[in-house]
């Protein structure tokens, strides 16, 4: 009946208002009565030049202040009075601001949140203010609801009348004592002349420091210090999210800080204290962190979250705005000043079973939404997946590079009066950033689809704080944005006639009447959805205190499990959709949080003493980007080499680990119960070499194992001896270095095989790159063994950036063939033809391949090949239609080659690098483009001319996905893995029966850090066990700790009858895992 009414009403409604998108309509302010405009009036004394957050906008909050079932709307004004609109139904509102007594007395109001602070069943309102700078007066105001549509300002009485630089606040019960405590978010105004060390955050400062306030019988007491909450001078707090991130029943806190200060991730210890744990669980974060929001986006029952930043999507804005740090500044900030890795883009953190976060914003398609303020997750189209609304825009872009470098000088300089600047003219010269609001449709597999300008109308407004609620009580989620210099926008959702929904409200105990902190698990059709009620969300805003689920076509929800903030729970079974439930505790039983996610015994457990294998790989500090400034990624960090074999002839497998440049390689000999490092002078002597790959085998058939290693490192160049491979013959338990054919390049993999069947082991040596000539093909070699001495087999010519190889009979003809993979190339199948090798099964899957492993993944009895690629979670983009391109040429004719990487955007190719990046190697571009704006938006052709591009060596990649080559009766088809396998480069696969089920599985490792800050860090892959095509278990469920580490090798070794997994990382300590099968 209800629904019918809605259906009937919709067409009528449509007639009245045409503005909007397919899903959301924007009713006319004159019809709704909501005319609130956050008018900003810059003056000589107050503008973005004086106050860094001049454009952050006001706040907005949705809540039912008169308990009539219709949610009302509260707006704060920066320079104008606050407004309260009473919802009269049918989307009409009455302005009761004046009679309600909430217009406010502070000079500059910011965030606002509603909560029933005194537990009388009526919604109270807390308004934050910035006080004490720029002549701003006042204090944070707490409006206690009198129950008759009037309010009494009572902040002082409650101890909440702070006169500091507040941006937002959230009421929640952190100590589970039943009443609502408060987290107050303040922002720094530090003029960032220097980073300062990270430990500035430990020195409390009243004006700028965040505060945790414990509710002691209606009086809020500052417990920040004892609770372990930072309150320093450089916490630019703009984002605040409360959620029980680690699902132990106690709410945790995430604070997003702007600028160089790290975000804070406070895990609630349950004893009134918190432990800040950002570095432990996050590989990297957004840099200019703005608003954020929490929701379970992959329906695994865990809270995930999104933190916004300001990376432009638009090519012109992108290339004319200040971007990420250069790599040296980043190192300085991290290594010297103690900050964490931060990058300028949105971050989507997917909560993992081991507490780590998998960061997928680039892969998920939501990394770049420009100058973004508020993010709100909601199932806007009610299909069962969370969607995202992101508000957007800045009136003036102060990070415009032309402004920074050129305009400002001529215009501001003259007005420069010591450090005080005032110049309207200068302001006018900053480009505006009236970027439209974004909306994304959530889909399966962590992917989001941009529905901006479809679901919502395109706009040119500056929208900031956003609140969510069901304003017309039709069951779906509506939105309100506070806009600068424009009436607030109502986004009225029309989804309720599309998918089914459930709205849940709570009546909890006396001091937390709306049940803040309540968790809801919805089980339907074998699926799960999870939500947690914390109304302060997004940015400077709070939303209607309700839980909303969308269900698509599902008519009945099997059960709803409600876990109350006091760790009790109740279950409601068989719930019909399309209704609003109001739930209060009834027969609630204690909830055991340990039962929330089933945890079996992990397959892998770290061995505390590593069995004596105390190897730590130390990468030398050579930075490729200092020399080859434009290469897309480093090649100097591909080590260490790793090989297993019996070196001392005792029948036990020993370990060889290659050192990086100037660091000797290591050999660990297996003893009865441990490994012991042993020194071999002939090998240590060659420490200058960076050893990339190694093989222990008997090459001269004397029954003693010898050693063959390849060298690389990307630093040595020309005919440097350090680039040569090494071959050590073992005689009488000493090694002696033997001569090898000389080829000077950075080599990669070494794979031995007796390809000519003459009874001795020949060796394939992969060629990767030529130092300082990234893009020029290296040559791979096949070394033919002639009585223990090697010579180049002439019948073998392969050029390209080979990274891995395998000798395997791919066509089942009984002869072993060679399969190669590499970067900017397709896998190559090579068949030995007696005097030469012939390529067969040509494929067109050009990738940045890192690894290959034979494995029957589909269990059909023939051999498929696992292929590790770059993944899709970086700024690279590639498809068959629009491959990633790399142009290699001497672009400026100075005798030195350059590589320029180009990406497709809207059908055209643009360089990946900025003008300053390109000009650091190609000075002529600075002469050609005198301003950043002239350069911005120029295609590759416009920048370099098609003739120069045509004459360049062109390398391409048309897939970045990892996957496998499926053997379809001898024909190979590439099948990509799902998205969890695409978050990072997959650098290695190992096969074996790890879980003891009698079947062979494959274990994958990955992650790679040799990239510039504009890419970030590819650190999110937790490892994975591949049972079959559709049965892949991530490593964080298996006890593996691979996140934030760059895995290079995985191997198993048996010691005393027990099988162990060895995980070897680049620039990190190796780890031995016991396999518990």
């Amino acid at each position, binding site marked *: 009946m209800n629904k019918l009414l809605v259906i009937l009403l919709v067409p009528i409604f449509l007639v009245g208002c045409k503005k909007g998108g397919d899903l959301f309509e924007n009713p006319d302010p004159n019809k709704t009565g909501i005319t609130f405009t956050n008018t900003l009036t810059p003056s000589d004394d107050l503008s973005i030049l004086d106050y860094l957050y001049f454009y952050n906008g006001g706040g907005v909050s949705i809540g039912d202040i008169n308990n009539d079932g219709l949610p009302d709307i509260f707006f704060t004004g920066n320079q104008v009075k606050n407004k309260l609109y009473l919802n009269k139904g049918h989307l009409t509102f009455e302005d009761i601001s004046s009679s309600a007594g909430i217009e406010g007395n502070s000079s500059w109001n910011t965030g606002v949140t509603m909560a029933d602070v005194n537990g009388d069943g009526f919604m109270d309102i807390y308004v934050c203010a910035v006080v004490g700078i720029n002549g701003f007066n006042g204090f944070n105001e707490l409006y206690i609801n009198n129950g008759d549509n009037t309010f009494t300002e009572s902040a002082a009485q409650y101890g909440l009348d702070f006169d500091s630089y507040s941006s937002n606040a959230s009421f929640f019960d952190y100590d589970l004592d039943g009443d609502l405590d408060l987290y107050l978010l303040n922002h720094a105004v530090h003029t960032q002349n220097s980073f300062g060390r990270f430990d500035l955050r430990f020195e409390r400062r009243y004006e700028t420091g965040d505060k945790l306030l414990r509710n002691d019988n209606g009086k809020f007491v500052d417990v920040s210090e004892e609770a372990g909450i930072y309150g320093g001078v450089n916490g630019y707090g703009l984002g605040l999210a409360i959620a029980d991130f680690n699902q132990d029943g106690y709410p945790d806190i995430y604070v997003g800080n702007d600028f160089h200060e790290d975000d804070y991730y406070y895990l609630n210890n349950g004893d009134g204290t918190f432990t800040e744990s950002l570095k432990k669980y996050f590989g990297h974060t957004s840099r200019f962190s703005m608003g954020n929001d929490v929701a379970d986006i992959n329906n695994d029952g865990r809270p995930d979250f999104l933190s916004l930043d300001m990376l432009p999507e638009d090519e012109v804005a992108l290339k004319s705005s200040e971007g990420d740090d250069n790599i*040296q500044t980043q190192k300085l900030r991290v290594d010297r000043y103690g900050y964490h890795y931060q990058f300028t883009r949105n971050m989507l953190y997917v909560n993992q079973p081991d507490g780590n976060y998998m960061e997928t914003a680039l892969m998920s398609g939501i990394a770049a939404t420009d100058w973004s303020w508020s993010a709100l997750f909601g199932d806007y189209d009610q299909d069962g997946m969370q969607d995202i609304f992101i508000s957007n825009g800045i009136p003036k872009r102060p990070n415009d590079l032309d402004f920074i470098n050129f305009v400002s000088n001529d215009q501001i*300089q003259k007005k420069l009066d010591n450090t005080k600047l005032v110049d309207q003219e200068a302001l006018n010269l900053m480009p505006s950033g009236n970027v439209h609001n974004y909306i994304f449709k959530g889909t399966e597999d962590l992917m989001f689809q941009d529905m901006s300008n479809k679901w919502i109308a395109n706009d040119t407004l500056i929208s900031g704080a956003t609140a969510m609620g069901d304003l017309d009580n039709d069951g779906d989620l509506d939105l309100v944005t506070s806009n600068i210099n424009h009436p607030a926008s109502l986004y009225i959702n029309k989804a309720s006639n599309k998918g089914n929904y459930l709205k849940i409200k709570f009546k909890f105990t006396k001091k937390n009447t709306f049940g803040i902190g309540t968790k809801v698990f919805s089980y339907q059709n074998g699926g799960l959805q999870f939500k947690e009620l914390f109304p302060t969300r997004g940015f400077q805003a709070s939303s209607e205190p309700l839980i909303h689920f969308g269900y698509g076509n599902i008519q009945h929800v099997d059960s709803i499990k409600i876990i109350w903030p006091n760790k009790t729970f109740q279950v409601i079974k068989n719930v019909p959709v399309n209704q609003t439930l109001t739930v209060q505790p009834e027969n609630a039983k204690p909830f055991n949080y340990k039962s929330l996610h089933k945890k079996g015994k992990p397959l892998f457990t770290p061995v505390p003493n590593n069995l004596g294998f105390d190897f730590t790989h130390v990468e030398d500090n050579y930075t490729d980007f200092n*020399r080859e400034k434009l290469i897309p990624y480093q090649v100097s960090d591909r080590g260490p080499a790793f090989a297993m074999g019996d070196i001392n002839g005792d029948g036990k497998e020993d370990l060889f680990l290659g050192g990086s440049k100037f660091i000797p390689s290591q050999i660990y000999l297996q003893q009865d119960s441990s490994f012991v490092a042993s020194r071999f002078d002939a090998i240590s002597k060659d420490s200058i070499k960076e050893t990339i790959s190694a093989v222990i085998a008997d090459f001269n058939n004397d029954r003693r194992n010898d050693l063959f290693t390849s060298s690389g490192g990307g630093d040595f160049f020309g005919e440097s001896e350090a680039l040569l491979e090494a071959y050590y013959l073992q005689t009488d338990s000493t090694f002696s270095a033997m001569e090898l054919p000389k080829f000077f390049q950075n080599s990669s993999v070494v794979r031995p095989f007796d390809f000519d069947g003459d009874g001795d082991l020949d060796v394939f040596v992969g060629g990767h790159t030529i130092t300082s000539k990234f893009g020029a093909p290296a040559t791979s070699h096949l070394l033919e063994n002639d009585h223990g001495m090697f010579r180049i087999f002439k019948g073998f010519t392969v050029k390209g950036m080979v990274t891995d190889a395998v000798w395997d009979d791919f066509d089942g003809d009984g002869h072993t063939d060679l399969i190669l993979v590499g970067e900017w190339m397709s896998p190559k199948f090579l068949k030995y033809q007696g005097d030469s090798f012939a390529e067969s099964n040509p494929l067109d899957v050009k990738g940045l391949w890192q690894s290959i492993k034979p494995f029957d993944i589909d269990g059909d009895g023939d051999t498929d090949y696992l292929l590790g690629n770059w993944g899709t979670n970086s700024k690279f983009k590639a498809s068959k239609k629009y491959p990633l391109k790399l142009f290699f040429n001497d672009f400026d004719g100075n005798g030195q080659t350059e590589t320029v990487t180009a990406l497709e955007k809207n059908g055209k190719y643009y360089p990946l690098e900025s003008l300053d990046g390109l000009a650091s190697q190609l000075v002529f571009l600075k002469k050609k483009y005198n301003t950043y704006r002239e350069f911005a938006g120029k295609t590759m052709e416009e920048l370099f001319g098609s003739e120069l591009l045509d004459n360049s060596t062109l390398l391409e990649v048309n897939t970045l996905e990892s996957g496998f080559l499926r053997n379809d009766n001898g024909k190979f088809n590439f099948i990509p893995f799902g998205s969890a396998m695409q978050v990072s480069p997959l650098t290695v696969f190992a096969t074996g029966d790890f879980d003891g089920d009698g079947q062979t599985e494959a274990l994958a490792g990955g992650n790679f850090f040799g990239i510039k800050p504009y890419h970030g860090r590819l650190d999110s892959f937790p490892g994975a066990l591949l049972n079959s095509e559709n049965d892949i278990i991530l490593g964080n469920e298996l006890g593996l700790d691979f996140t934030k580490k760059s895995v290079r090798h995985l191997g198993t070794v048996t010691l005393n009858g027990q099988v162990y997994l060895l995980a070897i990382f680049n620039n990190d300590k190796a780890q031995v895992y016991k396999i518990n099968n």
Partner: protein
Amino acid sequence: MKERLSLLAILLMVFTSCKKEPEQIVITSEEYHKSVDKVIEVMIHDIFSPPVASRIFAYPNIAAYEIIAKKNDHYKSLAGQVHDLTPIPDPKAGDSINFELAALVAHMDLSKKLIFSEDRIESFRDSLYSIWANKNETLFNASKAYGLEVANHIAAWMDKDNYKQTRTMPKFSVNSEEPSRWQPTPPAYMNGLEPHWSKIRPFAIDSADQFKPAPPPEFSMEEGSDFYKEVREVYEIGKDISSRGDESEEVAIAKFWDCNPYVSVTRGHLMFATKKITPGAHWIGITKIACRKDNADMAKTIYAYTKASIAIADGFISCWDEKYRSNLIRPETLINEHFDDSWEPILQTPPFPEYTSGHSVVSGAASTALTDVFGDNFAFDDDTEIPFGLPVRSFKSFKEAADEAAISRMYGGIHYRAAVEVGVTQGRDLGAFIVNKLDMTKG
């Protein structure tokens, strides 16, 4: 003889032209000053580091000088005197040439090649061109052609100075555990500028390390060590000056000689740069002041600019050679680390290693060159910094100005004493060598 021929040509034209009577084109030293000022203006806009800026001054001046030396018997060509410079071509036989005009054309053309924002030079040039063409098209065209021919000759020589190659050489790596090694400084934490400048071909000095100074005091933050004392001194001076406020003489001196082409200012997301002339440009400005006071003619003006700019350019090569040899850490980094984490220098620390002070070396070199041209005790009022809101300062001699420029870096909190004292000596020795070596005037 040459002059007589051109006079004859002009006379011929006067008689043959029936439209407008061709006039003589008179180029004064003021027009040359304007051209130099224009280049400085564009350099400020485009942002060039001090060493690169010094190169942009030198080549156009040499081109102009070589043309003047062709005509004026009082001046001798630098061909064979500076490295690899060959004699410029003669004008085409029979062409009548205004050499001053040709010199100015060459100066503008080479300058245009060296800066980024060409249109700014072009609009200045084109307005001059139209005036000259209007006065005497034939003479203008021939002189312009000759000026451009010489500019090309100089450009070919210039292109072989290794500048292009140094553009693609590795960045300075700051990854090091070495506590004495230079680190990027606040607020912009820029990479070390021009780590390979010593590989640029010098003009007059034999090699970049010919005037290699004694090493700085041995690095040690042990209390009482020479180095520690120097760090402490910078800290104490800074505290003392700051306590006396912006009106103190030391602050005035520091700011007057700041000459930082890119001071970055950050306020939240708002960033901008305040830009000034480089140390080299300041001394080019002093050269202009001296020329005017001396009533120097066009030829002497170009001679003075040329000698000064060679001294400045070689000064930077010599100084940068030492900077990236000693790779010494700036006072700001050490003071923040050891004494006071909120201490800020009065001037923004420029982005390259500390030892020796570039301004000191260059001031030593330039002042020696100018003393050679204009004599010692040449008093002048330095109004170079007026466009940047700074007052006029008066000096009794070039030497006095150089001494003040040197010590200003200590007041500014960006150099230790050794860098300043050794630096100015390094510059004077280098200047004296250049003055001795270059035989530019007759009689």
